[in-house]
């Protein structure tokens, strides 16, 4: 086995410099709940590991522009304990808290969930529905990229060589709006989503749906932002007819695989049901948030 180097710098500039100087496979280490599993199984053999947990901006949650900036390496448990964040974006927080057991929650981060690029990653649909934007640092400086544009396929991202996700920004939640995330798993804890559905919707003063984002997880190579499903809600009341249209649009957008967790047909059906239920929760939240 080749020698592996471990570094835990105190700033993002140092991370970028370390990655730029490295040859071979380098990996960022956040909570390690994907990376160490992949290393133990011999699936990845990095020459350099750069731990970002000693960097303040990657490990803190701060209020910003009416929304929140969440360090890419902040763990799920800390996200769940942040009362203001939970109040503004309960769906995002729920999704982050669904990742693994308490042991996993102590370590698992949004940056890791996103960059590991599993089609079933729980926090990703909720972040996309919320319109979250990543701050990325790399050899050419910093850039801002919507979370929706990071994963390009299973295990693949649009990050360039030597780039690192520093933090994820959630915008201010609009008035009369609410978000929700639901996933379906065959047991009550500790499993990977068969389907995930995230919805973020807003109501106008008359209670009509004025904006919506609908995102499905685990039914395609990456999380799907389904505009047809959002259009099914926008412009009218979120009533049974709208939910019926949402259900149909969600099913139509699915491109799932068959595997041991569920057949493609089953996943397609469940995506409609979950989208509908998540919309119900988001609607309740939007109504109580005026």
């Amino acid at each position, binding site marked *: 086995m080749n020698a*592996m180097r471990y570094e835990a710098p105190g700033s993002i500039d140092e991370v970028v410099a370390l990655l730029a100087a490295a040859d071979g496979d380098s990996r960022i280490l956040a909570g390690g709940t994907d990376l160490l599993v992949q290393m133990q199984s011999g699936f990845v053999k990095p020459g350099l590991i750069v731990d970002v947990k000693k960097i303040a901006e990657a490990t803190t949650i701060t209020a910003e522009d009416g929304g929140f900036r969440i360090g890419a390496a902040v763990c799920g448990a800390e996200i769940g304990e942040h009362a203001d964040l939970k109040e503004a974006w309960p769906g995002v927080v729920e999704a982050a808290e669904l990742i693994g057991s308490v*042991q*996993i929650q102590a370590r698992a981060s949004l940056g890791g969930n996103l960059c590991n690029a599993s089609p079933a990653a729980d926090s990703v649909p909720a972040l996309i529905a919320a319109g979250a934007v990543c701050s990325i640092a790399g050899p050419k400086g910093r850039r801002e990229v919507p979370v929706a544009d990071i994963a390009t396929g299973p295990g693949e991202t649009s990050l360039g060589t030597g780039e690192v996700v520093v933090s994820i920004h959630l915008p201010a939640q609009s008035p009369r709006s609410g978000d929700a995330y639901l996933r379906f798993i065959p047991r009550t804890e500790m499993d990977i989503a068969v389907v995930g559905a995230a919805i973020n919707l807003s109501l106008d003063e008359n209670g009509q749906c004025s904006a919506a984002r609908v995102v499905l997880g685990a039914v395609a190579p990456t999380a799907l932002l389904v505009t047809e499903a959002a259009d099914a809600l926008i412009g009218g009341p979120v009533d049974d007819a709208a939910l019926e249209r949402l259900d149909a649009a969600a099913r139509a957008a699915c491109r799932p695989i068959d595997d041991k967790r569920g057949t493609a047909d089953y996943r397609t059906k469940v995506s409609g049901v979950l989208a509908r239920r998540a919309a119900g929760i988001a609607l309740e939240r939007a109504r109580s948030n005026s």
Partner: protein
Amino acid sequence: MTKHHVSTTINGEPAEFLCEPQQTLLDVLRDELNLTGSKEGCSSGDCGACSVIMDGRVACACLALGVEAEGRSIETIEGMAEGETLHPLQRLFLEEAALQCGYCTPGFLVAAKALLDRKPDPTETEVRFWLAGNLCRCTGYDKIVRAVLSAAAEMRG
């Protein structure tokens, strides 16, 4: 291969060790520090047999690197009893037969302690959810859950 010199706190005492960068915290505890109470069940984060408390949160030692212990505080099963006096959780696991082969027990005890440190009065459902990351092949979980609830009641006095 260059070894890292790591300074940390283990069970409240300052500790130092040398480790290779790819060694997990579990490897270091067991093989370098002879703290073999933490068990290796799966090495993939699924079973919780390796549970330790890192800076106040229960985590899988198999999914952390030994070098990550630098500057942190680690609590293991070895730190749970006070000398000869067992922690109430340990005693009630024995009294209420919450173990058979015992392989999972250190992990359950460490995880349960982390729960009771945070929440002295958990419901049965809360105990079951909290311990969902700890697997047991033998007991069927019921006695474990009951022993945790008994310990919680006793510790509340």
